[in-house]
């Protein structure tokens, strides 16, 4: 990365780097984006608490569909990826490029595990009869979690490119550390959004004897 003399040296009015500020602004905007998607899902859950009807015409309940152990595992993996991301940012600030590479590879690996779990989950749910076409639940669920998955995929792609870029020797110094930190902000945000989605879309379904939305099935085994 070229050291852009004027842009680098000129102090900003607030002391915050432009790149960091614009990422915060993007994240503010993305909050509204996910807020709208999550609201759509929750509104329809409240309206149609019963779940969906599969291809054979059987009424299905969402608790029987979810594999909460698997999703908890992938949530944990994503959380740990944020931890590694923090280590990668810290390493970059100290100029420890090798440590940065190690940690960022870990983030990429964990991100791919999360995406793999999501692919498995989507395939599984599809075979269980939940499609984007057969119910409102299918539409909101796939579009919401799919949009989040797209965010993770973009983050993984970004970090892969950064990983390879680091071998050109151009990723370094103040600008390099800033670029990694900005990527880190994005990654942590996507992680936090997943915590909210995991709570609002998955966990609440298990609250109360009849499910949070009222008429779900009391714990029936598959």
């Amino acid at each position, binding site marked *: 990365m070229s050291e*852009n003399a004027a842009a680098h040296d000129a102090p900003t009015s607030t002391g915050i780097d*432009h790149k960091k500020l614009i990422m915060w*602004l993007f994240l*503010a905007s993305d909050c509204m984006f996910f807020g709208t998607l999550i609201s759509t899902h929750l509104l329809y859950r409240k309206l*149609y608490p019963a779940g969906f009807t599969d291809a054979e015409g059987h009424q299905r309940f969402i608790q029987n569909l979810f594999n909460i152990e698997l999703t908890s595992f992938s949530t944990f993996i994503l959380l740990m990826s944020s931890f590694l991301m923090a280590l990668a940012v810290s390493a970059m600030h100290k100029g420890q490029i090798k440590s940065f590479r190690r940690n960022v590879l870990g983030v990429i690996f964990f991100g791919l595990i999360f995406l793999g779990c999501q692919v498995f989950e989507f395939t599984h749910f599809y075979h269980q009869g939940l499609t984007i076409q057969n119910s409102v639940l299918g539409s909101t669920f796939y579009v919401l979690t799919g949009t989040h998955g797209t965010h993770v995929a973009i983050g993984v792609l970004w970090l892969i490119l950064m990983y390879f870029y680091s071998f050109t020797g151009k990723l370094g110094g103040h600008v390099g550390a800033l670029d990694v930190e900005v990527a880190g902000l994005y990654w942590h945000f996507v992680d936090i959004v997943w915590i909210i989605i995991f709570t609002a879309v998955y966990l609440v379904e298990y609250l109360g004897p009849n499910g949070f939305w009222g008429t779900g099935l009391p714990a029936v085994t598959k």
Partner: protein
Amino acid sequence: MSHDSHHAPVASKLELAPERSDLGLLRPDRTTGWSDWLTTVDHKKIGILYGAFAMFYFLVGGVEALAIRTQLIRPDNDFVTARMYNQLFTMHGTTMIFLGVMPLSAAFFNFLVPLQIGARDVAFPRLNAFSLWTFVFGAFVLNASWLFEFGHLAGWFNNFEWHKNLVYTDFAPANGWFSYAPLSGTFGQADASLHAPRFTGVGTDFWIIGIQVLGIASLAASFNFICTIINMRAKGMTMMRLPVFTWMTLVTAILIILAFPAITVALIELMFDRAFGANFFNPSAGGQPILWQHLFWIFGHPEVYILVLPAMGIVSEILPTFSGKSLFGYPIIVFSGAVIGFLGFAVWSHHMFTTGLGPVPTAAFSLLTMAIAVPTGVKIFNWLGTIWGGRVRFTPPMVLSLGFIWMFMCGGFSGVMHSSAPADAQQQDSYFVIAHFHYVLLGGVLLGLMAGLYFWFPKIFGRMPNATVAYIASGMVILGFNLAFGPMHYLGLAGQPRRTHTYHAGFGWETWNFVATIGAYILGLGVFISFVNLVWTAFKGKKCASDPWDGRTLEWSLPSPVPEYNFAQAPVIAARDAFFEDKHGGKRIGFENDGGEAGVHMPSQSWMPLLASAGFLFAGFGMPMMAMGVPHAGWIVITGLGVLIVGIWLWALEGPGGYMLKTPAVAGSPAPTETAAH
């Protein structure tokens, strides 16, 4: 420092040695002519391009409006078909809002904000170019629907298999500018190819992708401008010394980044309904069309303030200049602007009073809507206070600004009438509503923007528009506008519904419809003459001094046209309206000699923003063609997304570059004195 040190400081970019970017490609820094305009990262040139495209689309939207009024000039008219009428009013609204007013405001943001805060460019010059070209391609995609419509009417597609399979053939959008579901959506069950039956043709798909692309342009620009305003102020330019136009730009940009995600998600959901058979708004599968209304207006109401706040900012600059006084109640005007922005998010359901929200939400939204009239009224009183006791000079921008206050107030009054839910139930979907929002958006926003054009044209081009022509045109605009939209208050209360392509004789609507159409012609001619005057001025107008109005803000301290580096020395500010105070009172502006022989840093030009945004052109064309069933159209979409990704990738890897430009050697001047007042 490696890349900058290639270059010794130069007096002109044409003296630069050819330089290769980190990718090994030649940077287009030394280009002139059209390739200079395509690769420019100069906020002033980008502003001029925004303005040129916006004025073009104002004329397009104006022609659509005149076609609508011609159809309504007499009862049972058949100037256009009902189907064409639907497309005309939809494209008129969409064009005026997204391709006329917003880009013209963006033109002012681009040209003025860096100058007003004493900066040399925006925070992200290449991102700024990306916003411009994304807007241009989004606008093109939206209007390309007309090409398909005319092709269809001319019978060009008759031999194609995909054309024979189409159920609906409205190629231009025809749902109205808010595209209510379920009309814009689907019904019934999706077939094997994942398509559910629809109520409307591919015009809706053009609309969805067009608005989506335009939204990306607005979002990118807004991130950039918030960053610029917060982070790139000159020394001493505290937030409470910012010119009001810059303040309103900041509030507008914040509204955009918080409001546009709602429409983005709504459009994604609608696109999934139409393209993949999802059920977000499909009533036969349990989808709730009212969700569309909520999501749309959560965006749509802040959008109203996104349109009007920049015009308020412009007027807040013009009135003090021509009253010879500082703006009355600066802090309260700024605060009112912020309150309007904040409350703008809390009133969306007043567009939906007749949907049956229930008494509590209706009362709450009614109350909040009335409340938003308070900060607006505060602004109007402050503007009056500015003029009061001033030495008023009448010039075209001043006359248009006074027109703005007057006409916008009329729109505000009928707005307060709408805030009462029982009254609104009577006025809903009638011409009364048309009258209201045209008084706000035309009497308010358009007059404000035209005032801004006349005010800053001498700064932008160094040439003064012809005042006589400007007065005549402004008079025609204000007269024609009142003739066109004043009678609509009466027509609406007399029961004429909006969005119907004709009416029968005998309802008592004939006279005023005729008057309204004549008024619309006068208005259209006035706007056209004004634009001709301005375009002529840009090329041939009489040269004028750099500060012809005795201006107050920093841009007037610069030569006209403004040199590409803006400020030869970095300004240091010690007062609000520092330039005016400096001219007429104590020392309020100093300069730090950071330029001269050492030069100031200039960003490198680039093809990559244009390349990346060209991806939206392919993707935008491909998606409606997929919906039409044109074979292999999916590949066009994939090509577009590929171009976008490659464009961004090359953009990231080429490195920012930059070179040093010599500025006229002027000695630095001593530090200014702070005033106790502000």
